[in-house]
């Protein structure tokens, strides 16, 4: 597997501009002759599809939801970072870059992260022009808030619905192009294969979820922006439909999958309440601006109502352990600290499996300081959501929170141009691996999705297309397309034919139990080896005993889930293998064997690289390759938020 990062030469600050100046162009008259396929309609996908259409390319965009507006970017709450320095608190592109690369525990590609910080300012301009109603000061200027892992206020927000407003902005740009006929939009379509001709990505195979029709589509380039794989844990803050299938199918066709073990566990989610729970709900990290995290000092107090525990008997453990960042410590660190106090038996809330898994997030000090109405103005919708789910009023008693899977930093390997190792396959947003290293800072996912979609892919894909001949596009009559369609049809038929006894959800839950326990917040060698064996056995059981009801020719949610779970089973094995072979702790990857009194202990000499996995065939373990991470201007140091 050839892994050329293609990082441009020159000083970090000049790389992107120098590179852009050298990228090839396609003349406006020729652009309409190229067909670009975009899979996924979240921030990265919508933004990319709209941008390509504005430039004049013929674009087809696919999503599994009933409308592109529903992609899960919509659920992001807190905000989007940008190095505008509107608050005059010393922010700059370099500082945003430094915070992001440090936040990622020095496991991201330096040049990509710098570019991300550079284009962050353009994103805000673009979104305001589209009419995104960001929060404002009374004077009419844009407002900012602070967010985890940073000591400046650089986060732009729209109440607690920033993701929604940014996605609706991108959706409106995309809709305009659909209305103009420049983008053909295919909703309720799921990508089930990537088609390669002579080693180059030339199209995809989809299944129409309403009619069951399996179809193929030829193009000059394929851009995959299908999000992350958090649902491999079954319970996560992801939407129910989020899946790894598109990226994993591309992986099976030869695309390298990088760092699958880098998963983010978000500290502020509503704790698990029972067996039939289908998802976990995130409470925005912005709550940590004004909420204080604590547990009782004494185990004996954990069953008492919070109000009966006096101030001196409370342990504000984040403020105690990380005085300079306090409650705004980065996500991986805050999550692990919460797990630690719960493992000590000091967790709060109901007992599940013999343990109380929750910590308090307390707003009483903020309500005293700011008044309830101000707290309501800042976080009202989050407090309402909390009450809907738990039946508890967080103005009167502290919220209970616990970490939950939220985001996945790993993804398809891409070079500096966001092109995978398969020529013609580009990957944007959460689906790629490049910008967040081993841990993502808050308010960076929205930034990355839009950066890729609006400001990176339009340039780099154009450069690729400039090298593609105008008559190079195959038709779907080509044998490669026919073969791929046949394979997909056979797989669908196989899933329907097993006719066993257990539902796809049963397997999804069983998968999630293994991955969360053995490859969640803390991992170790024996556990991971056991997890791989257990997952292999579960995969075998799945293909022998799954029961998929419904027919293949109309809406069949169980068939959709079964196909996704089948890919998650293969993927889960690769994730555990990646965690097993990375013998260090970094960011969200915490191997209990490698720590300094609870803090992640990196091994830069051996593991300052991205691990990239290559598919080796059905039932085989994938092969590990590495891309060394070269730091030209960054001094690797031990991450400290103390």
């Amino acid at each position, binding site marked *: 597997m050839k892994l050329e990062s293609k990082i441009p030469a020159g000083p970090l600050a000049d790389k992107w501009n120098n590179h852009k100046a050298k990228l090839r162009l396609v003349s406006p008259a020729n652009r309409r002759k190229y067909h670009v396929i975009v899979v996924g309609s979240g921030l990265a996908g919508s933004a990319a599809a709209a941008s390509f259409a504005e430039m004049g390319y013929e674009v087809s965009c696919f999503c599994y939801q009933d409308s592109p507006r529903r992609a899960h970017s919509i659920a992001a709450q807190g905000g989007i970072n940008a190095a505008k320095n509107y608050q005059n608190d010393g922010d700059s592109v370099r500082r945003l870059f430094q915070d992001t690369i440090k936040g990622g525990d020095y496991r991201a590609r330096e040049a990509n992260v710098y570019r991300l910080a550079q284009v962050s300012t353009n994103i805000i301009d673009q979104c305001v*022009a589209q009419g995104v109603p960001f929060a404002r000061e009374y004077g009419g200027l844009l407002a900012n808030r602070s967010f985890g892992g940073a000591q400046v206020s650089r986060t732009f927000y729209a109440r607690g619905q920033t993701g929604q407003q940014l996605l609706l902005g991108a959706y409106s740009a995309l*809709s305009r192009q659909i209305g103009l006929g420049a983008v053909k939009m295919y909703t309720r379509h799921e990508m089930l294969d990537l088609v390669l001709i002579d080693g180059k990505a030339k199209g995809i195979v989809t299944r129409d979820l309403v009619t069951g029709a399996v179809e193929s589509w030829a193009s000059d380039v394929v851009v995959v922006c299908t999000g992350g794989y958090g649902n491999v844990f079954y319970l996560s803050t992801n939407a129910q439909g989020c899946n790894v299938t598109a990226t994993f199918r591309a992986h099976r066709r030869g695309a390298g999958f990088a760092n699958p073990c880098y998963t983010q566990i978000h500290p502020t989610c509503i704790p698990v309440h029972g067996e039939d*729970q289908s998802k976990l709900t995130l409470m925005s990290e912005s709550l940590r601006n004004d909420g204080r995290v604590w547990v009782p000092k004494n185990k004996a107090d954990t069953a008492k109502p919070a109000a009966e525990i006096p101030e001196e008997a409370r342990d504000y453990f984040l403020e105690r352990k990380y005085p300079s960042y306090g409650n705004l410590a980065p996500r991986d660190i805050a999550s692990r600290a919460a797990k630690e106090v719960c493992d000590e038996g000091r967790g709060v809330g109901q007992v599940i499996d013999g343990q109380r898994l929750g910590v308090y997030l307390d707003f009483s000090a903020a309500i005293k300081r700011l008044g309830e109405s101000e707290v309501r103005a800042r976080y009202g919708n989050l407090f309402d959501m909390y009450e809907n789910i738990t*039946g508890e009023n967080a103005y009167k008693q502290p919220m209970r929170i616990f970490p939950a899977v939220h985001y996945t930093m790993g993804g398809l390997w891409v070079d500096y141009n966001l092109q995978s190792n398969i020529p013609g396959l580009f990957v944007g947003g959460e689906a790629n691996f490049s910008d967040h290293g081993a841990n993502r800072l808050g308010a960076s996912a929205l930034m990355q999705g839009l950066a890729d979609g609006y400001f990176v892919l339009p340039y780099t894909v154009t450069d690729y297309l400039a090298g593609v001949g105008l008559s190079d596009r195959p038709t779907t009559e080509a044998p490669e397309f026919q073969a791929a369609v046949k394979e997909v049809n056979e797989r669908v038929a196989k899933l329907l034919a097993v006719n066993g006894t257990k539902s796809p959800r049963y397997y999804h839950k069983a998968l999630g139990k293994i991955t969360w326990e053995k490859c969640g917040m803390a991992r170790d060698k024996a556990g991971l080896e056991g997890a791989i064996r257990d997952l292999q056995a579960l995969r075998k059981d799945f293909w022998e005993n799954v029961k998929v009801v419904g027919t293949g020719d109309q809406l069949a949610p169980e068939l959709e889930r079964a196909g996704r779970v089948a890919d998650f089973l293969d993927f889960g094995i690769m994730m555990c293998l990646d965690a097993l072979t990375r013998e260090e702790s970094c960011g969200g990857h915490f191997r209990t064997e490698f720590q300094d009194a609870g803090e992640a202990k990196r091994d830069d000499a051996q593991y300052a690289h991205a691990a990239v996995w290559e598919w080796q065939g059905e039932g085989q373990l994938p092969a590990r390759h590495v891309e060394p991470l070269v730091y030209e201007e960054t001094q690797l140091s031990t991450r400290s938020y103390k």
Partner: protein
Amino acid sequence: MVHGKPAHTGETTLALKLRVWRQSRGVPGHFEEHALAAVPTSASFLEMMDMLNEQLIRAGKDTFAFDHDCREGICGMCSMTINGMPHGPLPGVTTCQLHMRNFRDGETITVEPWRARAFPVIKDLAVNRSAFDKVIQAGGFITARVGSAPEANNTLIGKVVADEAMDAAECIGCGACVASCKNGSAMLFVGAKINHLNILPQGQPERERRTLAMVKTMDEAGFGNCTNYGECQAHCPKSITLDVIAKLNRDYLRARVKEFFSSTGKPSKGGD
């Protein structure tokens, strides 16, 4: 707006009778009755539906198809009419945020899809809402090509205006307004988008054109007119209020008048 009852400390469960709409493509639909036991009160309505579907799979029967995705009240995908009310009895929430503690043990619950001419049933409880996308495609945007945006703080927008735009922009496009309206009107949805964009300074250049185009497409898609029943406001999970419809009417009138007086005799490209 939350009207949740106090939390149950111990886990209580409900036994329910469910009447659920079953419909396949090209065939008239009907209700199916099912009993479901041991539903935890902490479960969401969709988790209860998951339990029903798992029970059906164990019996070797087809599950009920329903739309859902984020399950945190923001994607707008879930769409069920519960006991005659879109998104169920709790004001200000989507179906996915409705929890079983709001129901009684032994209760019969009727579950139907959105009922509206513009939203045909796909299967069981899932409907086709692409008419909403068409309305947005006609004009629910501000034309702002990537690369051409001015510096963000060059456009001053007072907090009051920004907040008003945000109130309208919170619409999740679920379609409960249409499903709750006797006329199947989409005026609340269209009004929300018009209000979001038409009050912002960036939205001014296309204000009339946008309004005319969106209303025209809305009419063509088979949505009815507004006759002030107010059901849409009562069932909107984001508590969008009727004044967006009043403002839509005002902007539509304004656009028509302007169009009339600026008419050059050539057909307008913006509206009808």
